[in-house]
């Protein structure tokens, strides 16, 4: 017998008596508290095991599967998904990436016992600027003394353990590339000189209990060090590659759920004597959001598979997806809110979750490496990309994946770019005017990137240079779509190409609705049959 999925365990979100349904989620959100019943479901299902590699006794076999398994949680409540555990994964990834076998075993043991681990990078004064993080780990004969404060750290008030990003270099020394290290504190309650700081309230993602950790000369043993001294930045940037893909991937679930909700609303709401779904504009908005969902998922799918199949380039795809996908999801949710009208502004009722999702996606977008830091990660790579070897079809399919090899992830991605290299052949295969437009865009991007002066490749880059990373991300998303198995359907291909053109600002609104109407028909059929709208549909439990 197979284990029940989270979709089954979390149940029909439209059932008002369901303790993990929309009504219960909204009530907890209103109270600013995590959804206790949801946390109980996740604990009962041992969601932490999803974060532990199979080799360490867990169920983490590959990243796309992880994303897929977590989708039911994020359809209902991003705060639950992120607050309960995703940040534990982010902490553990550092250990999987750079920890000793013993550290890995210990952390696996903690996770499998259901413990939470906080991931403590953020300092209020420095945000995404890791290199200037000030919390200091002063070396002593026995280990380190920690001084400083981390803030906006999920579960800092209740986590058993934490991974801390700390400056280990002499504070008087000029900044270099190896100033910071990661420390694993596996029992925070046993650390003298550590204060758990009060919770910081947020607008949204109430399931995340963000707080701070204050260290005042706290002594930690030398064995707490994860990886070599000075490798904190490198480890962080490598483990971010996994967590960025996961965050982008689960973020699409918010859109999937909202798309169903707004479809359900529109099918039942009578305006001007007919259901709202009879209005061409409403159908177009729904179909557009459907295309947005598929673009986002095709892209995150390829990015997540690249971690396994072309890890040397995966960092770029992870950064591009983390930058582009939450924003695309936010835009699509905004369109859906237009269909919903005033109900998107209410905190009660069957569709109030749409407004909540719209608010929460912004938090998901900010949290853990905001958009510009992802763009800045991409920018220096753009001039030197090598497009000789297109990715193999496996990058886009569903074949079994080799285990994730954390040592193969690179701090700086390699120049060959298999995903972008796969774009031109796919364009040839598709043909037509839309594809021709993309081909021109690819050539223009290559030319502009090649001409990028050195001074325009770093933090002082102007907006025109930074805009190249956005165009690059859209081209990657296009390649992921056109190489996906779905590209065999010309109507689907037209729909996503029109949509990418529109969303990227390259094309105006389409004059015809052929592709959108075809997409709307698929959407209706899925809704009627209880299948999700995902690129890889699955059965969903929800009142139609």
């Amino acid at each position, binding site marked *: 017998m197979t284990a029940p999925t989270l979709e089954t365990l979390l149940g029909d979100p439209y059932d008002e008596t369901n303790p993990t349904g929309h009504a219960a989620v909204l009530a907890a959100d209103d109270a600013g508290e995590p959804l206790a019943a949801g946390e109980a479901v996740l604990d009962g299902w041992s969601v932490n095991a999803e974060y532990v590699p199979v080799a360490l006794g867990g169920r983490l076999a590959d990243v796309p599967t992880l994303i897929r398994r977590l989708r039911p949680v994020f359809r209902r409540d991003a705060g639950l998904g992120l607050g309960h555990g995703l940040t534990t994964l982010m902490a553990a990834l550092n250990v999987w990436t750079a920890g000793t076998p013993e550290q890995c075993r210990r952390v696996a043991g903690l996770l499998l016992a259901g413990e939470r681990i906080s991931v403590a990078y953020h300092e209020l004064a420095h945000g995404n600027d890791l290199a200037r993080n000030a919390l200091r780990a002063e070396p002593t004969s026995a280990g380190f003394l920690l001084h400083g404060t981390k803030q906006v750290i999920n579960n800092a008030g209740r986590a058993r353990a934490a991974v801390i990003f700390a400056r280990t270099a002499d504070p008087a020394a000029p900044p270099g590339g190896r100033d910071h290290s990661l420390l694993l504190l596996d029992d925070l309650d046993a650390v003298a000189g550590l204060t758990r700081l009060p919770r910081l309230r947020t607008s949204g993602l109430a399931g995340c209990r963000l707080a701070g950790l204050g260290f005042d000369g706290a002594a930690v043993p030398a064995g707490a060090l994860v990886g070599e001294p000075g490798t904190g930045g490198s480890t962080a940037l490598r483990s971010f590659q996994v967590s960025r893909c996961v965050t982008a991937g689960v973020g699409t679930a918010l859109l999937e759920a909202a798309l169903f909700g707004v479809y359900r609303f529109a099918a039942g709401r009578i305006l001007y004597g007919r259901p709202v779904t009879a209005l061409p504009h409403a159908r177009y908005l729904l179909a557009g959001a459907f295309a947005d969902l598929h673009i986002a998922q095709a892209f995150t799918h390829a990015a997540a598979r690249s971690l396994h199949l072309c890890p040397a380039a995966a960092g770029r795809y992870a950064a591009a997806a983390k930058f582009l996908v939450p924003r695309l999801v936010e835009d699509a949710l905004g369109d859906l809110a237009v269909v919903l009208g005033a109900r998107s502004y209410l905190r009660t009722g069957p569709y109030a979750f749409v407004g909540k999702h719209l608010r929460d996606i912004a938090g998901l977008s900010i949290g853990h490496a905001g958009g510009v830091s992802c763009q800045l990660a991409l920018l220096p790579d753009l001039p030197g990309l090598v497009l000789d070897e297109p990715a193999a079809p496996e990058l886009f399919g569903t074949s079994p994946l080799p285990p994730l090899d954390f040592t193969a992830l690179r701090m700086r991605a390699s120049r060959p770019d298999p995903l972008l290299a796969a774009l031109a052949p796919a364009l040839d295969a598709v043909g037509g005017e839309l594809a021709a437009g993309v081909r021109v865009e690819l050539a223009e991007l290559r030319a502009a990137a090649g001409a990028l002066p050195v001074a325009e490749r770093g933090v002082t880059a102007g907006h025109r240079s930074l805009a190249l990373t956005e165009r690059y991300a859209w081209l990657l998303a296009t390649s992921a779509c056109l190489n996906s198995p779905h590209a065999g359907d010309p109507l689907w291909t037209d729909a996503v190409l029109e949509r990418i053109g529109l969303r990227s600002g390259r094309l*105006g609104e389409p004059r015809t609705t052929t592709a959108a109407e075809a997409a709307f028909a698929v959407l209706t059929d899925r809704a009627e049959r209880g299948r999700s709208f995902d690129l890889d549909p699955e059965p969903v439990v929800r009142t139609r």
Partner: protein
Amino acid sequence: MSSHPGFRHPPLLAAEELRRRLTPAVSAAERDAADVAEEFPAAEVAVLDDYGLARHYVPAEYGGLLRDYESAAALMRGVAGHDLTVAIAHGKTYLGSVCTWVAGTAEQAHRVAALVSAGVPVSWGLTEREHGSDLVAGELTATADGNTFRLDGEKYLINNATRGGLATVLARTAPEGGPRGFDVFLVERSRLAEGTYTPLPKVATIGIRGADISGFTLRAAQVDTTDRIGAPGTGLETVLRALQLTRTLCSALSLGAGDHGLAEAVAFAGERELYGRRLAALPAAARTLTDCYADHLLNEALATVAARAIHTMTGELAALSVAVKYLVPVRTEALLARLRRLLGARAWLRDVRGGVIAQGTGRFQKIERDHRIVSLFDGNTVVNLNSLVSQFATLARGHRAVREPPPGLAVAADLAAPLPAVNYGALRLVPTRGIGLLHNLAPASAQLAELAGADPLLGPVAAAVRRLTERTETLLAEIGTQPIVPPDVPPYAFALARRLAAAVAAAAAVALWLGSHRYFVDGTDEPGSAAPLWRHGRWLLAVLDRVLGQESTVEDEVLDETHAVLGTVLAGQVAAGAMPSLLSLGSVA
């Protein structure tokens, strides 16, 4: 450079003064606690009542202080820039009373004026739970019975419904409904029998949590024939004409939110250290700020010209008002989203501002949350675009021939020109002569070309206006060919309507610069003065570039210089505590 203070725009000065009055009323922690607890912002509403703000909702002819809508809107902007919840809580009374100004008798107007001036909150009962913006489907009925009407039914999502003493209610008077099947009634609660007016529970909203958003049920509520506004069967028409005013004025709420959001973002960027530099000094971040400022200035230009046009181009308001109500809130939402991304976690934390951790200091999240209501109420985005689309055929006809711009346009665009009283009888459901601002583009383009002859620095602006003019001509030709059978509006028509609204906004900016630059260009250069924005058409160039997008004619170098000027003025205005505005002359006392 000259340093005399020059022209000061009275509406803006009054708005800034009102905003300053509100500042000490409540602390950030109190504001936050009230927001969480969904408490009505009574303390600040009391400040507004002391100021007599409600009298600015009442036309002067009925004893109020409302002489020009630009000034009234500016006051509302000042309140909104302080706290949008407060602005919406108080300003709703204007929306509730406007049907009377538009279509009521003098007697009715005096009666409503007395109530409003006495501080009685007024609500506007239009929407119903199952019908939303589909007003023709409204089910609340008014049944004639001798000299009285009996009202039965429910109105839902109504601001002021619980606190209000007067409700202006749209009711179905003909069982079969239809365009002539509704009337508007004044429902004064103190005149009703006990139990006939029952407020609905407060509705839990994402933002403006303190506002009185609820609804009411009428059961055998008896009103007099003299409570009916206008001739029998004219209710929907009255509402549509009244909406032309309110939709134009709603832009003040968005401008206030933009003022507030920009101030928060500029302050943050000015003190935030990132990558060893101040955030404001990172070129891409600086450009984000000035892009948002340019969008805000475009909104301000459109809103200002449109508010003045209530007086001088009244017959065109059907088109102008929906263009304003669509464009200004949506562009403000987009600029707030961009600022949010710039602010990062600060935009999301409720208790952190800059380096300070204290309850309620994280204001940005509230600005964005509160502001989302603006694109939803009083006709949402779809309703406004739909309305523009429904005018396509008439507008296209109005633009088939070249016309002189209407004489009222020059007055609307000249900020020092006195505004005539509004003739509400001139409100029309469709402008038959097209949109004056668009008729004005060709002569404006010629005028700018001439000015560019004398000041070569105006060359890029003249070229941008020429491009705008060409593009708009193409657009106007295209909207005439749309096959539209409401409500089956093809999605592409919505795209055209968005472009039309953008063209109107850009045309308003062109007209405003041409009509008023002479007052500003010699103004002071002290920090915060908008004078440098007006010289050489700088702000106009920046906003035209934003509207034209990929079709912009502006060269990168010129544009970068322009944005540098915008950045300096914006920083100066925020530092001076002035509104980020085209109309500020700096040096706020």
